[in-house]
């Protein structure tokens, strides 16, 4: 399955921090404005990437980044 992972992290600063952590760990990451304002807590930013979702979430949590939601979009 080719899946795009979107992790909503709230602020732009959180997204930038998350991006750097994931880049360091070999992920290819982009920052996007969160699309679903009905879910979670409203506006904010997400990091979007492909690869091992669980490992990525673990890395972000370890760095103290607040994760608001994680969603997976199947591209296959």
């Amino acid at each position, binding site marked *: 399955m080719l899946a795009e992972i979107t992790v909503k992290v709230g*602020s*732009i*600063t*959180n997204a930038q921090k998350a991006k750097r952590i994931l880049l360091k760990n070999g992920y290819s990451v982009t920052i996007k*404005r969160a699309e679903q*304002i009905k879910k979670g*807590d*409203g*506006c904010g*930013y997400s990091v979007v990437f492909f690869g091992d979702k669980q490992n990525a979430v673990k890395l972000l949590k370890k760095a103290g980044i607040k994760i608001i939601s994680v969603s997976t979009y199947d591209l296959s």
Partner: protein
Amino acid sequence: MIYLDNSATSYPKPKEVYEAYKNAIKYYHSNPGRGGYENSIATSEKIYETRLKAAAFFGEEKEENVIFTPSCTFAVNMVMKGVLNPGDHVLISDLEHNAVVRVLEHLRRYNSIKYDTFSVDFYDDIKTLQSLKNAFTAQTKLVFCTHASNVLGVCLPIRKIGMLCKQNGVILAVDGAQSAGIIPIHMKNDHIDYLCLAPHKGLFAPMGTGMLIGDALRLKTVIEGGTGSQSRSFLQPDYLPDKHESGTQNTGGIIAMSAGIDWIQKTGIEKIYRADTAHIKALWQALKDEAHIQTYVNIEKLHQFAPVFSFNIKNMPSEMIAQMLAKQGICVRAGLHCAPLAHQKIGTLDRGTVRISSSFFTTNNDINYTISNIKNLLLNF
């Protein structure tokens, strides 16, 4: 024009700062942390880079603990009003700026905060520490002190004060307005909980920039509002820096600050310190023995100081001396410099002092011309 008022704000700035400021307005024109389009993200990236640089420069482990503010005074307010509760006791040095004193006086009158001062011995750190130690009470929650006096340049032993605060379970907040960018400051090694900064001085940023560094998550907010995040909620975000960064940021100023930090690192802070203080030493050497000149600190006895020199001439009002120098194109500041406590300490509360504050860009010719003009004023006596 010879600009010797760098304690108020630095001028000139490195050319890289001007360039960064110009480019910021032109190319990073979108509101950071608000939009999802390319320029907004690119502008946010510039802000984040500055946050990373500032954190590294001041020995702060977490970049989100760097909060951008409109001024150092704003940062001081954030700490005082964020930390203190009715009944708390605060200790400040007897050299503090009104940015500290007025906030505390307000809190004393309206929030039942108590505060006292401890005495700074210009030449003996042990005496300063003893004075602080003697002033601790069971209610002391916060020590707030300047790193370097904006009137006298005298430095406080912040690392030793930090250790003492740590031993006593007291929070240490430092006003680094006069020292940042000239004298190294390290959050962890100096045991500082909160550092309030005026980047438009030693970091060569434009005016309208300020910074608070430290774990501001435990501070109550001073302002609330839009952050571009968590916007369904009527409550302020509970993460940094959003908790304390409501409203649009001074993007141009912050990006220019980044260039200022780069310039300092490229030049070397030790080199900057040597150049800045050499000018003050030259002034002091030339004027200290003049019959009608009063100086207030023996610079030779200080192991470290910020590039500030205060003096008076006989009974002339300090403002009159500054006006006479201004007529010769020399920009200095006179009066109380918003620091009446310091003037009370040196006995100049009724007349103030003339303050000369140099920078890396001050030249020997600037100093020699200034000395010559001050000596010309002495011919009146």
